[in-house]
């Protein structure tokens, strides 16, 4: 199990660290970012990939995350405003002006 995160206790007091052979959906949703970032250890990665082969719902969750990220990308950046006159004046004073 990815040992870079602290174990998590859910309502049922269940620890998140995986000792069994499979990853559950509840565990997967906590691992999804590490999965996208390529930060999972090999064993956990293969457990995650096996889970995704079998679990259409978690695949849907992955798609929702991808859509969320793509939509964030599409928000685009506010373009920078025009630098204020005072700033340009201070700059121009350096080189001897336009």
């Amino acid at each position, binding site marked *: 199990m990815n040992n870079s*995160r602290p174990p998590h206790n859910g*309502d049922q007091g269940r620890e998140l660290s995986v000792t069994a052979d499979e990853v*559950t959906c509840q565990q997967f949703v906590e691992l999804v970012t590490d999965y996208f970032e390529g930060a999972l250890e090999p064993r956990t990665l293969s457990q995650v990939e096996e889970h995704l082969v079998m679990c259409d719902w978690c695949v849907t969750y992955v798609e*929702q995350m991808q859509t969320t990220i793509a939509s964030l990308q599409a928000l685009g950046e506010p373009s920078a405003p025009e*630098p204020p006159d005072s700033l340009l004046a201070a700059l121009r004073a350096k080189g001897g002006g336009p």
Partner: protein
Amino acid sequence: MIGSHSRQRYEIVVRGRLSSRLECAFDGVTFVPRNGQTTLSADLVDQSQLYGLLNRLRDLGIDWSASTPSQSPSMQPEPATAPARPAASEAQTVSALRAGDERIFRDLFTRSYPMMKRVARTYVASDAVAEEVVQETWMAVVAGIERFEGRSALGTWIFSILTNQAKSHGAREKRAVPFSSVASRDAEEPVVDPDRFQTDDEAWPGHWATPPRPWQKPERRLLSLEARERLKHALAQLPERQRLIVGLRDVEGRPAEEVCELLALSQENQRVLLHRGRSRLRAVLEEYVDAADT
């Protein structure tokens, strides 16, 4: 189904030969020079990694002409920007600023603005104040550029002026410094309501009880304009550190290494913030989409 979610090999072709020293700066990317071109190969997990890589190349003034995934068409990158003309080296930039070169200044100002505003915003109470902080920072940069000794990178120096300005504004507003609290506290709560999963006395403990439903998308990758407005609003409402990380990584497409270095965050802490921010935004969109469908 699984193919589109595991790593995919991307190849990016750039003109000319790239220095092998540059290869060390790109983790997990191999450079293969051939016939006056260099092919960069990388196994990437998703599109945001690809965008991060392409943005880094652009910032370095490297002209890439094609990038191809080896698999699923849904991962096809859409270059959002034309290849940039080569960026000035740092020494050239410093000289240009000292000489009052307006073109170079405007280029730097424009490229850095979104990130600077985003960082400033984590320390102050409004967008308007964040904009003021950025302008004040540039005034200080222009005024102080002769004193810049080059012991740190120019960006680092500018960034430290920015954070100092932001903190002093924030102190006037009596706000706590956002990165002073320990990031691990963020790791405690589950990102999906535990009620959504089956309990130990049900058939499949830990599996979905109320699974996510696929979203209808009017466009190939994106939700409706209205949903995206909702997303924009939700982003602005995120706790400030999550908002900053999601903004830098996902909205701006900056790579993880750059964000970690800029903010002096470990990769792990950065991922925790990214995870919480993205998960919360997904949940907001899910709520929105489910409500819109009923």
